[in-house]
């Protein structure tokens, strides 16, 4: 528990509980050494009153010879000198001797004890074998001890102990020692308990009397301290400390009560003026001088506190709790200062500072004395408070004694110093030899300016080092700041600057505005003295805009800048760049127009709203924003301007606390492929990821560097937005810039710079990104139909739109439309053009003059500024080509490019489409613009040739394929060649008809001729049509040209079905006879001859025909040969009959089977198909026969399609095969078509077949 080296210096350690010894002194002296040695060997448990926890205690005792004076007199409360146990020693073993002298002596001893009320006694009888041997006649056992017990210890037999052979090394002797010591300890503890208990009771009683008038704290103090001493003597430091703490608390309470107006008389002695301030004294265990003062009631408050603390300190160090000492010391020092203030004790100014300074150092020295270096370093957090306190106090002493000023102390200061030093008194003897004693330090520090500085810096740096070592950077910087203040007062701004900047850092990084302002002001002063102009101006700008400062101060700093700005430059770099953030705050930027997208040369205005932070109006010579220009590059990554609102404003974020995390900034990104501008990728990009993804410390580091304002540089961009001579009033201002828009591309605002004389306020980055775009546009002409579909044949309106782009339409500029016959431009005098601005506003209207010549239609345009839109409507008519398949080759009348109006038949919408290309010569281009217009033919017309024997009919079917209803009149059919003998007889009854959308109108004409029938006919079907609701004057012609070939009937086919012989009707299942007669009706004329193959056999010209009987509907079964070749004589009315057997398969009226006739071309004939001179032929001859029959009704479409494969192509060339060739429609008249024959059911009636369809 206790190191042995420390023992001698502690005064109280020499105190041990006093035990008196009476009786045989020689005997005791012989046993003394072993007794003192053995007593503390084993601990005893000390059970205590008032519920205090029992303790194991090692007992020691100071054995002294019994004297009556030792016994305390009545009223003497001293505990330290109190004999706790009285022992009577005897080695008497002779009853006689006992009776004669010893008993008497004991009775006297007992009498004295009883007189003083002491009941703590013990009689020790030492038995020795040596003595017993001499007196053998006497009863050996228990005689004397029993006698003594009988005589003295009635009911207290334990008060008499026998100790046998104490000086021998035998087990018996050991045993006897051990039981004796136990008894001794027990009795000692009993005595402690009893006597201390009594003492405490008395002490408490005394304490309860504290409200009585005569009560003295000092007296009570002495009493309780006595108890503390005893506890300390018993090495019960904890208990001893409790006593002092109780005294401390009691005193504190009195002082507080005094402060509350409840004064105690005795406190008056503590209120005497402080005359001595020599600090704490912790090097002695008990400061007897102070204790005497207290005992005499002459102690001052500081004396009492000092003494109390020194005792507490001593005990705490015994308890190995040095760090509690420092904490208590700081509390004590603070408390004393407060108490003196509270008690209104008069103190020489500076005296307390001295006292505190000395005390701090004394405590630190004391702690350093009992701890090693590593322990100290680990516990800086406990000591640094004292260091700082000492530093503060030394500083205020320095201030007081004029040691800080540049000039040194004046006489008044010196007087003060002398007074203060006087109060310190003489140095205490303990420290007189030490070189570094607090006393010496203070004396030296106050002796001269230099010494003060040395000591002050030493302390400050020590405190700062410690703060840094334990990570209390803010505290370290605060110490640094006060050091800086010291330097500033010493006129050394150089040294001060770094400390100030350092502490500024922490206030900036944590946004503590008030300390920030204060520190910054100090920095400004410092920089001004150092003549660091750039930094000073920057700081001034910050201060001028600092709302924490008064108006006057702000104006002062603002004026500093303005004064500097107006000075003429003397150095080669005349400009000083300052951060704009201190000067103004950007609020909003507004684009006009809002889209921030203008064409080249257009006016784009930017309205900048900013808030001037300066306290006075500042005239800015130039406010310029540098602009980064990027030319148009198609295909590069196009970033959408995310920060720009749709209403064309960019809002600048308000300055937020530094440490707050920034908001997420997203923008859309689209990447177009460079070749075709198609969208390749689209995505969302976070633009400030580097800020967001930064590691977030839970506590922001104080060491984050602040952006140095010196790094400002103004890029001299080629393009600038400038505003000259702007006066910025305090508060909100609005400045309008006109943006350059000479070149197409993207303009990004980069920096902002306000120039005031030599000073430039620069905003190095404008954030968020502000961009505007300038585009350039080529003039453009578009012609669009006004309706969904343009209909051919009717006047249709088309809309001409001219985007003038960069071109200015001058006087005399005209559009030259090349005329085509198929699409004339119908112009009327009422044609007006509308001129629209780029934003779509109507600027003006003017009439158009349209002049048509043979080749061109010239439309003279009205004057139109660039980037405007010119619109006008024009009527055009597209003639429907009379023959849809006819290919026209037309030369442009203006003779520039040959192009043709092609018409293509498209069947997807059922409407034939005519693509009409118009060539327009525009005034801005040397090239013609080709505009394609698509017209839809509203009608689809089909024709067919119908025969009835020799009579011929032409049917025309007109289908309205458009969505409009038309009225149709004057349908006529004319023959082109005007064959004289030919007549077309109309069989139509109505001349007017309305043809609804998607409906058809049929018209039929009979072909009549006299003489030779026409070989082929070129016919024109014409009609007038107009929309059903239009007046008759709007009727437009429609014509359809077609040709009919091989009009005359060559052969007539007849057939008869006869039932089997003997039957009246045909029956199912029985064979019938089919008789087919082929009759040549006319002699072939020249035209036909080229068509037919003739052979001459035996002088008779014949042509070969192939017939075929096919029943497609499975009504008939053709038995035997169903086809054959016949030779037909070339003569009119030559008939050939063929018979064959067929069998009906069903009963009822059955249609005749199909009988088909072909030309038969034998294999030796030329395979090569003769090329047709007539254009019609290429399409309808050589078709597959079966198909030709099926598609008979659709010949018109077949012709125009012209894609039917010919036989010749199907077969491999050069292989001699006979061929069959179909006749043209109308060349063969089939009389069996539509004929039916009655078939009766078969004879077996028991099978009845019923077909339900």
């Amino acid at each position: 528990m206790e190191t042995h080296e420390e023992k001698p210096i502690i005064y109280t350690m020499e105190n041990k509980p006093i035990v008196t010894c009476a009786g045989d002194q020689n005997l005791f002296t012989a046993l003394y050494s072993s007794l003192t040695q053995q007593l503390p060997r084993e601990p005893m448990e000390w059970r205590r009153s008032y519920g205090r926890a029992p303790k194991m205690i090692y007992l020691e005792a100071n054995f002294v010879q019994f004297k009556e004076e030792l016994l305390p007199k009545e009223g003497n409360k001293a505990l330290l000198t109190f004999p706790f146990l009285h022992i009577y020693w005897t080695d008497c073993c002779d009853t006689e001797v006992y009776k004669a002298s010893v008993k008497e002596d004991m009775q006297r001893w007992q009498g004295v004890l009883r007189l003083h009320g002491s009941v703590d006694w013990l009689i020790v009888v030492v038995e020795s074998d040596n003595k017993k041997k001499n007196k053998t006649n006497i009863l050996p056992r228990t005689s004397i001890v029993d006698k003594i017990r009988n005589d003295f210890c009635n009911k207290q037999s334990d008060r008499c102990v026998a100790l046998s052979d104490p000086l021998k090394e035998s087990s018996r002797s050991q045993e006897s020692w051990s039981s004796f010591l136990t008894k001794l300890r027990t009795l000692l503890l009993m005595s402690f308990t009893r006597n201390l208990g009594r003492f405490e009771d008395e002490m408490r009683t005394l304490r309860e009397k504290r409200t009585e008038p005569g009560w003295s704290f000092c007296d009570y103090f002495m009493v309780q301290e006595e108890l503390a001493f005893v506890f300390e003597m018993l090495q019960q430091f904890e208990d001893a400390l409790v006593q002092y703490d109780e005294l401390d608390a009691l005193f504190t309470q009195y002082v507080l009560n005094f402060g509350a107006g409840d004064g105690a008389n005795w406190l008056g002695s503590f209120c005497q003026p402080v005359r001595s301030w020599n600090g704490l004294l912790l090097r002695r265990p008990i400061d007897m001088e102070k204790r005497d003062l207290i005992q005499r009631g002459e102690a001052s408050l500081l004396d009492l506190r000092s003494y109390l603390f020194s005792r507490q300190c001593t005990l705490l160090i015994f308890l190995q709790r040095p760090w509690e000492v420092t904490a208590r010391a700081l509390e004590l020092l603070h408390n004393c200062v407060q108490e003196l203030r509270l008690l209104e004790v008069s103190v020489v100014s500076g005296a307390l500072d001295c006292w505190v300074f000395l005390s701090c150092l004394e405590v630190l020295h004391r702690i350093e004395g009992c701890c090693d270096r590593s322990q100290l370093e680990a516990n800086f957090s406990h000591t640094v408070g004292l260091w700082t306190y000492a530093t503060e106090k030394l500083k205020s002493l320095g201030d007081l004694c004029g040691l800080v000023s540049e000039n040194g102390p004046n006489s008044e200061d010196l007087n003060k110093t002398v007074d203060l030093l006087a109060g310190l008194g003489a140095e205490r003897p303990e420290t007189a030899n030490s070189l570094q004693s607090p006393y010496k330090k203070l004396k030296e520090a106050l002796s001269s300016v230099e010494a003060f500085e040395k000591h002050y810096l030493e302390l400050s740096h020590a405190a700062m080092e410690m703060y840094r070592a334990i990570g209390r950077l803010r505290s370290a910087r605060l110490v640094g700041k006060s050091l800086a203040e010291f330097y500033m007062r010493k006129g050394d701004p150089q040294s001060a600057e770094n400390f100030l900047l350092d502490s500024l850092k922490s206030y900036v990084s944590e946004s503590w505005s008030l300390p920030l302002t204060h520190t910054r002001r100090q920095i400004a002063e410092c920089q001004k003295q150092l003549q660091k102009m750039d930094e000073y101006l920057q700081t001034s700008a910050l201060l001028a805009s600092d709302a924490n400062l008064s108006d006057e101060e702000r104006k002062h700093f603002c004026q500093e800048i303005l004064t500097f700005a107006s000075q003429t430059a003397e150095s080669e770099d005349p400009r000083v760049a300052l951060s704009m953030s201190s000067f103004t705050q950007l609020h909003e930027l507004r684009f006009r127009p809002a889209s921030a997208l203008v064409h080249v040369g257009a006016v784009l205005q930017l309205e900048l709203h900013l808030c001037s932070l300066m306290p006075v109006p500042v005239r800015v010579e130039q406010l310029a924003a540098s602009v980064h220009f990027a030319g148009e590059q198609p295909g590069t990554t196009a970033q959408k301007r995310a920060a720009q609102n749709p209403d064309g404003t960019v809002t600048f974020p308000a300055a937020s606390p530094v440490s707050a995390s920034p908001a997420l900034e997203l923008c859309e990104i689209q990447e177009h492929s460079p070749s075709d501008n198609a969208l390749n990728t689209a995505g969302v990009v976070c633009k400030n990821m580097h800020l967001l993804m930064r590691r977030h410390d839970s506590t922001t580091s104080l060491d984050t560097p602040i952006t140095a304002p010196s790094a400002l540089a103004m890029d001299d961009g080629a393009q600038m937005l400038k505003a000259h001579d702007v006066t910025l009033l305090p508060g909100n201002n609005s400045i309008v810039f006109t943006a350059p828009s000479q070149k197409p591309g993207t303009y990004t605002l980069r920096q902002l710079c306000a120039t005031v004389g030599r000073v430039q306020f620069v905003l190095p980055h404008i954030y968020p990104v502000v961009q505007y775009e300038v585009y350039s546009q080529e003039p453009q002409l578009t012609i669009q139909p006004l309706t969904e579909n343009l209909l051919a044949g009717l006047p249709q309106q088309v809309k001409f739109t001219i985007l003038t782009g960069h071109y200015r339409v001058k006087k005399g500029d005209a559009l030259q439309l090349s005329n085509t016959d198929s699409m004339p431009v119908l112009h009327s005098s009422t044609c007006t053009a509308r001129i629209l601005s780029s934003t779509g506003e109507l600027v003006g209207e003017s009439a158009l003059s349209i002049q048509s010549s043979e080749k061109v239609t010239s439309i003279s345009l009205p004057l139109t500024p660039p980037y405007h839109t010119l619109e006008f409507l024009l009527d055009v008519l597209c003639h429907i080509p009379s023959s849809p398949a006819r290919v026209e080759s037309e030369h442009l009348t203006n003779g520039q490019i040959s192009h043709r109006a092609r018409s293509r038949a498209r069947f997807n919408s059922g409407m034939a489409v005519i693509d009409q290309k118009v060539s327009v010569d525009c005034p801005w281009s040397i090239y013609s613009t080709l505009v394609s217009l698509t017209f839809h033919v509203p009608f689809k017309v089909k024709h067919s040739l119908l025969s009835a024997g020799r009579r011929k009919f032409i049917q025309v079917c007109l289908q309205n394929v458009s969505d409009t209803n038309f009225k149709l009149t004057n349908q006529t059919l004319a023959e082109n060649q005007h064959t004289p003998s030919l007549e077309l007889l109309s069989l139509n009854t109505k001349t007017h008809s309305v043809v609804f959308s998607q409906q058809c109108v049929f018209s039929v004409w009979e072909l009549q001729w006299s003489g030779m029938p026409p070989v082929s006919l070129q016919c024109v079907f014409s009609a007038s049509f107009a929309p059903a609701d239009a007046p008759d004057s709007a009727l437009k012609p429609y014509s359809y040209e077609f040709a009919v070939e091989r009009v005359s009937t060559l052969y007539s086919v007849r057939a008869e079905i006869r039932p089997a012989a003997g039957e009246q009707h045909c029956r199912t299942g029985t064979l019938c006879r089919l008789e087919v007669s082929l009759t040549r009706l006319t002699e072939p004329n020249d035209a036909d001859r080229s068509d037919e193959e003739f052979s001459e056999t035996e002088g008779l010209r014949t042509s070969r025909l192939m017939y075929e009987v096919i029943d497609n509907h499975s009504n008939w079964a053709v038995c035997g040969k169903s086809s054959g070749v016949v030779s037909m004589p070339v003569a009119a009315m030559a008939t050939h009959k063929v018979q064959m057997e067929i069998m009906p398969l069903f009963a009822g009226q059955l249609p005749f089977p199909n009988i088909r006739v072909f030309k038969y071309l034998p294999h030796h004939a030329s395979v090569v198909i003769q090329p047709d001179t007539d254009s019609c032929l290429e399409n309808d001859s050589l078709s597959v026969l079966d198909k030709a029959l099926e598609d008979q009704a659709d010949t018109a479409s077949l012709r125009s399609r012209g894609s039917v494969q010919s036989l010749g192509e199907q077969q491999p060339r050069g292989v001699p095969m006979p061929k069959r060739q179909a006749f043209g429609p109308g060349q063969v008249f089939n009389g069996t078509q539509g004929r039916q024959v009655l078939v009766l059911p078969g004879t077996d009636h028991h099978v009845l077949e019923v077909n339900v369809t």
Partner: protein
Amino acid sequence: MAVCIAVIAKENYPLYIRSVPTQGELKFHYTVHTSLDVVEEKISGVGKALGDQRELYLGLLYPTEDYKVYGYVTNSKVKFVIVVDSSNTSLRDNEIRSMFRKLHNSFTDVMCNPFYNPGDPIQSKAFDSIVSAMMVQAC
């Protein structure tokens, strides 16, 4: 009662700081700012027992000659600092604790306000009046 009451954000910038008008505001700002050192030291939990971690009251941060500075930290690491005059001895630990509790309740109300953006300076009148009551009371 209290001479200065401050609410400090997790990032150590002041959300609210008010002191008695009679004494220098600046001094309190310095005091409170410096006290953050001790607050951080205490929060960092060196030698802090597990059971204590729910204890929000940090106790006396540091005494000066004139003032005592007490600290309190919410679970979201918002710090409350109360500075009381050293001469005001009627304030015991319990009173300080109850002041912090009151402050915390009122602060919670502020945070519950949907119009309050966490991290902004506190401008709530209700909070202000609670603070005023603490500064005036029993002084």
